[in-house]
């Protein structure tokens, strides 16, 4: 199975996000980037598929700070080929990013033929699009979102995918290949890769560089962000301070008041 995995870096919300003086973008001074969590799951699902069915995992990422670490760690985990789209001015919107991915997948002959494209179902900065649907439309491939499991069928021409709905209900889908899947979670949490293996990958493997493709639509954003702010909290919890014992007593009091005890 030839599997393409698309990775994007997003701001790490462990770090305090600051808004730039223009009031419309994030301040990049303290910004740290981390791989989009569901993209990481997409990679894990790809590796699981490879282990089960053989084949090749190619990872394609947009250039961003720290993306090299992520790509080398993908190699250490078992990815066969890692590529980075370089040369853009950074800060592209999701829609433009998806467009670039589509262009490259369509035009880079050595990425063909592929069986399946896996990427995260959604990212915390997907303001103007989700990647997978755009990709499926531009490549003319079937699309399924919120996938939590992918099992290859015997024919090799389709996979069975589990997708989540609401209320704990899931659906089992027959997905003809090639297809684009938005992965919510891999079958099991992403594996641990020891630092030594990542460092070894840095020495022995190479990140292939691809230039930013020229886009027919110019990749211009269709939205204007006029204002960014930290959420103004309309209501905030009444905070209870003190040692756990005191807090417990206060809480128990509240529970009793509400007739819960």
């Amino acid at each position, binding site marked *: 199975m030839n599997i393409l995995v698309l990775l994007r870096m997003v701001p790490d919300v*462990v770090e305090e996000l600051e808004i730039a003086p223009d009031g419309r973008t994030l301040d990049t001074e303290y910004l740290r980037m*981390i791989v989009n969590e569901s993209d990481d799951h997409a990679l894990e699902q790809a590796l699981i598929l490879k282990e089960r069915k053989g084949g090749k995992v190619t990872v394609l990422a947009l250039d961003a700070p720290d993306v090299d670490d992520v790509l080398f760690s993908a190699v250490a985990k078992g990815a066969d080929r890692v590529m980075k789209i370089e040369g853009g001015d950074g800060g592209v919107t999701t829609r433009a990013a998806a467009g670039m991915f589509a262009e490259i997948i369509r035009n880079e002959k050595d990425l063909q033929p592929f069986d399946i494209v896996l990427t995260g179902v959604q990212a915390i900065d997907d303001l103007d699009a989700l990647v997978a649907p755009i990709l499926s439309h531009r490549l003319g491939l079937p699309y399924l979102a919120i996938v939590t499991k992918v099992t290859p069928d015997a024919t090799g021409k389709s996979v069975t995918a589990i997708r989540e709905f609401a209320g704990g209900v899931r659906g089992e889908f027959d997905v003809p290949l090639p297809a684009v899947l938005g992965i919510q979670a891999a079958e099991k949490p992403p*594996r*641990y890769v*020891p630092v*030594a293996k*990542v460092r070894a990958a840095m020495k022995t493997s190479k990140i292939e560089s691809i230039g930013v493709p020229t886009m027919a639509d110019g990749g211009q954003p269709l939205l204007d962000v006029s204002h960014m702010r930290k959420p103004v909290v309309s209501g905030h919890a009444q905070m209870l301070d003190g040692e756990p014992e005191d807090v417990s007593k206060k809480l128990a009091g509240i529970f009793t008041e509400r007739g819960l005890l």
Partner: protein
Amino acid sequence: MHDPAAAEYFGLPGFAYLWLFALVSFFLFGRRVWRYIQTLIEARNEPRWDQIPRRLGVFGLDVLAQRKLLREPVIGVAHFLIFWAFVVFAVSFFWNLIRGLLPFLPIPYADDVSWMAAVLTVMGVLGLAALIVAAVRRYIFPPAGLEKSGDATLILSLIAIVLLTSLLGQATKESSPQLAQALWWVHMATVLGFLAYLPYSKHLHLLASPFGVLFGALQPGGIPPPSEGASFRDDFTWRQLFSGLACAECGRCERGCPAFQSGEPLSPKVLMHHFKELVRSPSLVRDGDGVIGNQVQQEDIWGCRTCLACMDRCPVANEHIPIIVEMRRFLISQGTVDAHLQSTLVNLTRYGNSFGASPRTRAKWTQNLEFKPKDARKEKVEYLWFVGDYASFDARLQPVVQATARLFHEASLDFGILYDGENNSGNDVRRVGEEGLFDMLREKNRHAFDKSSFDRIVTTDPHSFQALKNEYGESNGHVQHYTQLVDHLIDDGKLTVGKRLGIKATYHDPCYLGRYNGVYDAPRRILNRIGVEMVEMPRNRADSYCCGAGGGRIWMEDVPCSKERPAESRVREAAALPGVETLVVSCPKDLVMFQDALKTTGLEDKLVVKDLVELVEQSCRPDKERVECPT
């Protein structure tokens, strides 16, 4: 008595029989031992040939003087006597054997030399007395961890026969030479049989352990040489495999092991037993299955706290912790880690701390201080204070870390911290087997050190202390634990004891301060000076009992255990001391662990846990006191 080797039996001279017995015995012994040696030669190398004089010194203490055995005095003395009786009788045996095999030699038998006979008699009697003590202990009052095995019975009996036949032989030499001669043969045959049986028995320790001690680890770090981990026999170093041969299964390790004592699956003794089998069984090599998942389970491997209790008390200098770390390295290399540990390692890789907090918030605790500690990267300082993760990020340690800062300030100490330039020291990272991550953290810290200007380092955390002092290579300079520094500050009059606290307290020796680095006196001296009446717990100093957090355990999910967890057992031990209301600690993880244990044991009304620094502040800055005295 006639010369037993010259006498004729069934038409052949005695020495012919002796030759036959000796050849068979030495052949059986030699074939077996040679196989062990071959296995060790084929194993991974681990150089242990350095510092011979120092090694001989350790040999003198731990083999000849039986230092570690004497830590359990009754059986220690008995073993001491049996050991020396064995040495004397071994000399006598070889003397007699050579004389018997080569009857033409113009020398007498050993027991025909009067002074030797006297020595043999004395050691024989003492040895037999010691055997009785050992037998009574083993069969009537067996300590935990000592199993009654047929093997032990056989060996004790054989030693008794050897001693008895010699004593009786001497006693009957004049009165009944025939009997003496028969006893001589029984004696020689028993020893030769013993020799042939020895390599198959756990009492191989009496041959192997002197070498184990001689080639033991001189620096207690518990960290094996660089490797990608081990599960297969050939992946282990010869010294690690050798531990299996040297083990006498005495159970001392189990009696000190926090995992075993809480009823968790790990037993360091059983681990050694598996290693004995690993060396003995030729089938367990690379092509076969690894040890992990077969003889040794993952719960065993992750159960270890690396507290060093087992290695510190092991009379034969076995290396349990390096073996555990090797196997952890193997599991890490396979990516086999539990979810909690995995997220911690990911946090450490990404943020340099185990809390997954933004590195920018590392020095947030300084915000409420009335002064701002210097940034050692920007200003020259005398002391670089390496604060550590727990003290920096855990809310429960804020009073401790702030008290430390105020005390240093009070003492006009020229100190600074690294702010967001500090990373986890990597001590526990290394001990969970993530050596690559340890290297990375060490590089980052060294980089921060290089950018800073300081003369000495002081740490809050004993784990960081061990790493920086002993595992950071060249840059280790002068690393102190804060208890050592505070002790000096009081000595030098920089900190003045204002108020004698007049409380009764006990002190818990942290593993990495005590056993690993021998710092026992500084904290006790400080407590004494600030007017704390010290009451020792039964398990103190080198026998201190681990809180259960070390070796990365604090980052892992708890495994089911059938008995009390280590920290719970420890707070009970402290609470049982008459009049003691304060348990003093000098390790951030101890504070966290023991405070939790007080809750789960319901001892909160009886005992409080205080960091030493909090008490020092009460005494040295009584007017500015922020922490309450225990009532």
